């Protein structure tokens, strides 16, 4: 019955089918976080990528890199940091926030929301992504607010107001190559837990204007955060303020916490905040994280001390989470090399500092585990 030509054809089809089946099952193994971690570890080019500390890093002495030991020193250094950015200890008077504008869930959407070149490159605006937040439990309203630095710069802040507010406000700052809309599920979790959320994108992203060079970009980032913080404190009067930052947004979080002691708890995830001596030379950190004027004012370890001190009797806390198997950057357990020394120094000033390593995935993201840690930590501090 079976002719030789059909036999060859049949064997070929079965071979293709088997390849497809293997492809499907292998895809699952490659993309699912637990198995992906095993693959990435197995494929690592060298033991220093995920497993061991580079011998060069082991020469780093964090004790010597910490130069802030007392509260008056912290105050002086905080002022020096602000001066390095703005030339004064305070925000310039011409920075301004426009009145909040309510984003109507049922209102019309901008016509240029579809995948335009600008949208793909720089991310969509809040109005284009409103539907993502529809159905979020406990969400009352979303407001949009414009931040301006004369003569030309402006950026946008989103304010998510919960129906039942636990009296705490959480600032979320996203990093490069995306917008906070990428984290809408984590923002929704915060709102579900009763937190008001202020969300920020970096300059150039989500319809924020393109950043200026060096310190100008830092003025634009920090100005928006600190002025919004003042606004929030004056208008909503929260009992506590926390800040979460992902990737370069984690750098902004560490910097904002160092500048403004009203931020009680800070959480940086996969942030470019390793001291230079611990940074992988093959990785190019974002330029904002390597501005000499700022690093001269306060090196990273000093920045962490500033982020956990300065609020008198109210203890401040900083939790840094790094993805051990991060595909992108700031991976491995390198941060543990400075964690002990910073914890000790922070504790001597009444603060609390901790580093945790997330081993649950091999991506550049805020994982479910990291968000669980953050929410549990926030609940504990709130009590």
């Amino acid at each position, binding site marked *: 019955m079976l002719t030789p030509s059909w036999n060859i054809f049949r064997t070929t*089809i079965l071979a293709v*089918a088997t390849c497809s089946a293997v492809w*499907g099952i292998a*895809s699952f193994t490659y*993309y699912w976080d637990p198995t992906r971690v095993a693959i990435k570890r197995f494929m690592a080019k060298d033991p220093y990528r995920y497993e061991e500390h580079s011998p060069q890093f082991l020469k780093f002495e964090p004790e010597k890199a910490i130069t802030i030991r007392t509260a008056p020193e912290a105050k002086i250094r905080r002022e020096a940091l602000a001066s390095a950015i703005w030339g004064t200890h305070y925000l310039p008077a011409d920075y301004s926030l426009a009145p909040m504008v309510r984003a109507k869930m049922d209102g019309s959407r901008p016509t240029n929301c579809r995948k335009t070149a600008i949208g793909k490159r720089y991310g969509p605006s809040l109005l284009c992504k409103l539907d993502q937040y529809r159905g979020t439990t406990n969400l009352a309203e979303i407001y949009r607010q414009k931040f301006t630095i004369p003569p030309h710069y402006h950026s946008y802040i989103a304010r998510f107001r919960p129906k039942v507010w636990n009296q705490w406000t959480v600032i979320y700052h996203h990093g490069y190559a995306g917008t906070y809309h990428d984290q809408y*599920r984590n923002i929704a979790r915060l709102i579900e837990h009763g937190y008001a959320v202020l969300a920020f994108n970096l300059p150039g992203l989500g319809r924020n204007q393109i950043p200026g060079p060096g310190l100008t970009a830092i003025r634009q980032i920090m100005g928006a955060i600190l002025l919004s913080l003042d606004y929030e404190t004056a208008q909503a009067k929260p009992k506590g303020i926390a800040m979460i930052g992902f990737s370069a947004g984690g750098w902004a979080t560490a910097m904002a916490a160092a500048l403004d002691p009203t931020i009680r708890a800070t959480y940086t995830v996969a942030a470019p905040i390793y001291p230079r001596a611990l940074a992988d030379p093959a990785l190019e950190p974002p330029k904002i994280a390597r501005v000499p004027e700022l690093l001269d004012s306060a090196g990273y370890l000093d920045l962490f001390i500033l982020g956990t001190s300065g609020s008198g009797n109210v203890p401040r806390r900083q939790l840094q989470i790094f993805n051990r198997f991060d595909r992108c950057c700031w991976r491995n357990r390198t941060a543990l090399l400075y964690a002990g020394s910073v914890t000790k120094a922070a504790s001597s000033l009444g603060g609390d500092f901790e580093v945790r390593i997330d081993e649950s995935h091999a991506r550049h*993201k805020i994982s*479910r585990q990291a968000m669980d840690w953050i929410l549990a930590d926030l609940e504990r501090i709130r009590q």
Partner: protein
Amino acid sequence: MIMLRNLWLVVLIAFPALATWRWREDGMWINGEMPTHGLAQVISGCGLAVALYSLVRIIDRRRRNGTDK
């Protein structure tokens, strides 16, 4: 023998179905533990395999029964 041959098909249908269910219900998608394009590859790989296996089985059967000469 027939059972074992069918088991392949059952596995190839059940595997992506189960993956899709967990992806939606258990947070693999919500928490980014399996990207959309990853799941699409799982479904398309297994789906194509099932289609091709079925095609061969159907042709085999027709030829055996003499309905396709």
